[in-house]
């Protein structure tokens, strides 16, 4: 909402600067996003204070003054004004400033005295005709302050963020009501010169009536509870008076003519959208408010030809639709210079209907914006009288016949019981019932206090506050009118929350920390992808086909992020994300699973001059990262089973037979210089249900370990896992560690075999192991390996 500072003053008196008004409205009513001085041609002018004024030695009417304009040194300024006074502040144009007429201020000599700048009169600034002297300022502003922030010069526009529940604030009258509430000055309705308000009764009808020969009908199915039509004949369409042009300029609306401007004046002044039809263009002459016929066409004022259907309400004459009700007028019915007779429409259209039409036609106007948020149906008739009087006053027309009102406003809101103790309970501070009543009354609520009931008061909201429906709304009114900042920031005792932490959150945190410790960067991309497969979930109204589906796997988004980094010449990429993937569910809701996923590629450690060619990350790095994630999610790394995937280049991760993810090379669109990319994905959803297995202390060994190495020849088909199982079975519980530490094929290793070297570490918890105990185990292990797997020691 654009509000004009000057226009607001038409509706109530207040003694606030635009900035003070901004702060007051923001604190109590609605946030003022910006304050824009419309006289930017005065931006160069500053406040100057005359420190001394001496008569010019060579002149009988000039003064030589010293001016403080905020700079370090006082400026010499020669001034011819008779009213210059020491100690007074004036608008001052420094050297380089340009005055509204285009005059550029320069340093010059006046009768031998140098003058750097100019003290200005109101006329020189375009602020009036007074040229008898310079313009004395009553301001506290320091010298050097921009003139525009010290003086309300010209109009100032306030850009107000009006929230959807307060349509009454989409009008100067409504904002002025709120200003009046905190200044205490009464609100008023401005009465421009020549305006004569009639109070002759209107003709009320339920479906149709005729006024001045024009039949007006409202179809029962139309989304129009109230329609007022006023016929004015004999208008002379012409330019609007200056005051009206300025008011509309104040809100950024261009003046068109003295009839159309009135409709805009009503919209911005009172929040009531209106339309003026040229009677000569109305076939019949007739006005029908009805549903559009399916396929009915209309060309609207924005030049677009639209095809309508029966969901749209139109304003039509006997043959043709002339406007889409509450949204936009049609071409050809608007008032022109040739117009002599007009029909003024002042109506209430159903908010939901306007909203759905506006959305269906993708056209939003100042009118639709207000109808969608609801106009005051009890004010309609009064607005019609006001608008008619204004049109007549400006254009010389006369109301013909008795205006018609079709329909009736709804019953006024019922009284709401406000329990005074409830106010204290909700707000945390007692607000006496007198104060509640005074605050609510200040913005038009009718408050009735009963002597018999000190506990509650009865409150009827004003007709323009259709948003107020219950006690909680009244409490809000009291709080905001009192000022939110009047309530103390006092931390009072509280009970701590009894809800346990979400396991999804705690598990996610653990895994996040583990993957950060593994050297990966967390990312937070969007989950949208072009294609998520047959079981994927589609957005019914996507932003674009390229992001029409929700990912079924986090690796999908990770792959794109790796490609993004490759495209930006980064070859070392280590990313992870913990997020949701979606698949189709049995019902309308999709199945959401939370995954920890990672993609890594490039150097294993940063290159350094001492290590210029670091090894590249490989599947074994990926396997370790997966182990970190599993261990963080499920408590212990051993909680997962790895089985080779179908391509043999990675693993499927499972747990108790349930597939949880994968570790494998990740296919991405990669430049030639990129290293291989490895992807890890782990479903951590099942970890949310279980209790995390905490680690427990294992006593540190106090006895020495005994180690030996075995270099074993593994025939093809025998895995390290097979060998490990045999060794652990035979070695018994004294085996503390078993690590394959080298793998070799080539010279000395028979064809079809590979050599894997193992280190076995044995330890007895209580004593030193004897050599022959170790030797015995070595022999038994070798025997079992040969018998069960055909594995022999390499050296033999």
């Amino acid at each position: 909402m654009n509000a004009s500072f000057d226009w607001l003053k038409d509706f109530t008196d207040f003694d606030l600067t635009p900035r003070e008004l901004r702060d007051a409205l923001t604190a109590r009513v609605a946030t003022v996003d910006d304050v824009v001085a419309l006289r930017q041609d005065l931006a160069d002018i500053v406040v100057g204070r005359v420190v001394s004024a001496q008569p010019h030695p060579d002149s009988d009417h000039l003064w030589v003054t010293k001016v403080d304009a905020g700079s370090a040194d006082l400026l010499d300024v020669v001034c011819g004004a008779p009213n210059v006074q020491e100690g007074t502040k004036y608008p001052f144009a420094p050297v380089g400033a340009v005055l509204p007429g285009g005059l550029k201020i320069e340093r010059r000599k006046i009768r031998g005295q140098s003058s750097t700048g100019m003290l200005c009169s109101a006329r020189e600034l375009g602020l009036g005709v007074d040229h008898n002297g310079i313009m004395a300022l009553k301001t506290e502003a320091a010298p050097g302050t921009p003139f525009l922030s010290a003086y309300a010069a010209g109009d100032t526009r306030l850009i107000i963020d009006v929230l959807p529940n307060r349509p009454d604030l989409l009008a100067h009258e409504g904002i002025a009501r709120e200003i009046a509430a905190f200044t205490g000055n009464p609100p008023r309705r401005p009465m421009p010169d020549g305006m004569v308000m009639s109070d002759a009764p209107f003709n009320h009808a339920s479906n149709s009536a005729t006024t001045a020969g024009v039949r007006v009908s409202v179809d029962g199915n139309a989304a129009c509870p109230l329609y007022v039509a006023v016929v004015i004949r004999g208008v002379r369409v012409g330019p609007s008076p200056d005051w009206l042009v300025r008011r509309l300029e104040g809100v950024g609306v261009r003046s068109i003519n003295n009839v159309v401007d009135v409709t805009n004046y009503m919209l911005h002044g009172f929040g009531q959208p209106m339309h003026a039809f040229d009677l000569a263009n109305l076939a019949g002459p007739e006005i029908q408010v009805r549903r559009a016929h399916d396929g009915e066409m209309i060309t609207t004022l924005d030049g677009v030809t639209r095809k309508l259907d029966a969901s749209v309400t139109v304003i039509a004459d006997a043959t043709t639709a002339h406007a889409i009700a509450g949204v936009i007028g049609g071409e050809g019915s608007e008032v022109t210079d040739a117009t002599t007779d007009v029909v003024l429409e002042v109506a209430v259209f159903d908010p939901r209907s306007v909203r759905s039409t506006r959305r269906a036609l993708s056209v939003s106007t100042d009118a639709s914006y207000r109808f969608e948020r609801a106009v005051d149906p009890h004010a309609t008739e009064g607005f019609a009288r006001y608008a008619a009087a204004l049109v007549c006053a400006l254009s010389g027309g006369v109301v013909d016949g008795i205006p018609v009102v079709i329909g009736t406003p709804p019953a006024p809101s019922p009284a709401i019981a406000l329990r005074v103790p409830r106010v204290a309970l909700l707000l945390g501070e007692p607000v006496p019932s007198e104060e509640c009543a005074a605050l609510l009354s200040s913005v038009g609520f009718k408050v009735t206090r009963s002597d018999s009931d000190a506990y509650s008061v009865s409150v009827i909201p004003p007709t323009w506050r259709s948003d107020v429906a219950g006690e909680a709304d009244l409490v809000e009114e009291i709080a905001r009118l009192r000022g939110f900042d009047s309530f103390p920031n006092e931390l009072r005792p509280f009970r701590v929350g009894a809800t346990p932490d979400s396991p999804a959150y705690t598990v996610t945190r653990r895994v996040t920390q583990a993957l950060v410790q593994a050297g990966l960067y967390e990312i937070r991309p969007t989950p949208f992808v072009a294609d998520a497969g047959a079981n994927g979930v589609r957005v019914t109204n996507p932003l674009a086909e390229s992001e029409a589906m929700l990912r079924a796997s986090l690796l999908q988004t990770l792959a794109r992020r790796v490609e993004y980094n490759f495209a930006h010449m980064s070859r070392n990429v280590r990313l992870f994300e913990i997020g949701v993937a979606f698949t189709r569910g049995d019902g309308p809701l999709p199945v959401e699973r939370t995954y920890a996923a990672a993609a890594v590629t490039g150097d294993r450690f940063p290159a350094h001059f001492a290590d210029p060619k670091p090894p590249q990350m490989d599947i074994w790095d990926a396997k370790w990262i997966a182990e970190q994630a599993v261990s963080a999610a499920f408590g212990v790394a051993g909680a997962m089973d790895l089985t080779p995937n179908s391509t043999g280049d990675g693993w499927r991760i499972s747990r108790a037979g349930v597939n949880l993810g994968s570790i494998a090379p990740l296919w991405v669109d990669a430049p030639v210089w990129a290293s291989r990319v490895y992807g890890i994905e782990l479903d951590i959803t099942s970890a949310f249900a279980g209790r995390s297995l905490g680690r427990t202390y294992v006593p540190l060994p106090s006895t020495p370990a005994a180690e030996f190495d075995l270099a074993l020849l593994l025939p093809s088909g025998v895995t390290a896992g097979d060998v490990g199982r045999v060794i652990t079975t035979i070695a018994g519980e004294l085996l503390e560690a078993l690590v394959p530490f080298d793998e070799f094929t080539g010279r000395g290793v028979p064809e079809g075999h590979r050599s894997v070297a193992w280190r076995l570490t044995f330890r007895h918890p209580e004593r030193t192991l004897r050599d022959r105990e170790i030797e015995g185990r070595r022999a038994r292990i070798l025997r079992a390996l040969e018998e069960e797997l055909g594995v022999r020691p390499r050296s033999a």
Partner: protein
Amino acid sequence: MDIFLVRPFAFSHTEQPQVPDVPDSPSLEQFEHSATELVAAAAQAFAAADTLDALETARASFLGRSNGRMLELQRAVPSFAGEDRRAAGRRFNDVKTAMEQALESRRAALEQAQSAAAPTLDLTMPARRQFVGAEHPVTRVIEEIVAIFREIGFTVATGPEAETEWYNFTALNFPPDHPALDAHDTMYLADGVVLRTHTSPVQIRTMQNSKPPIRVVIPGNVYRLDPFDASHAPSFAQIEGLAVDEGISFVDLKATLAHFANRFFGPTRTRFRPSYFPFTEPSAEMDVECRLCGGTGCAGCKGTGWMEIMGAGMVHPNVLEAAGVDSERYTGWAFGMGPGRIALQRYRIPDIRVLYDSDVRFLEQIAS
């Protein structure tokens, strides 16, 4: 023992000193003589070694474990009996200690000489770095917020990202087909199923599933039908809070959120303005002093000196009732804010897309 050590066979720089062999079964006198000779010979050999390599060769020839000369002396010890054996043992140990001391002092001298002569390190060369990981800046902001609310008795709640319209709108008191929905341009997955437009459905779920006192913060991703531009994204993080108990008031809301602002931003003034959310009444926005100008007014805050941080309000009784909470007995307050926006302000990021690109150069910048 380092098995890869290759043992040289001869002294490289000095003639091998002549030391008589220790007889296989010497007298104690002979033993003593050999010992004295060995110490002297070793001292001479060590002194003669003028490099560390040469010293190592000398060491091996006397103290080497496979064929050092001390082995001969050692082998002779068991040939004595009784008191003589103990004396020979002691003497052997003394000799060995003396020899080792001589070796060490020569080694220290040589090392010092060598380091003085060696080319100095170019200390301007860069350090050896490690790859370190990092949380996303938005996650960092969320975690800071969570940590502050945990201090004052809040726990963490989460919920699904796909929701029914009932949880996302109806239970939260959104009037059907109302302009309030304009701020929630919604992505639909099916009839009546949406990607949640805010984390507020979790408020309803929490109230349905647990009894007051409830104090939860709810971080999560939310979705709006907003194409990417410098300040909008179709999905973003939100965190909201909910406190429900008997006697919870607007003063509690203000005080808690002002406390949060002071903890999160450092001491700051706060300001509460009227606002509107269907699910709270009264509704407010909280501002803190502008982080750029400190409250004096600048282009960043449009001269107001304030910066909007979050929306908040007392939970609407309709919302409590929709979630099955007795709105006469219990009251509550709620707030919601965008950690992404806070991250943009904190790190002075001009374009929200930077948070989504996942550029490792950015992630590293913020991490370090």
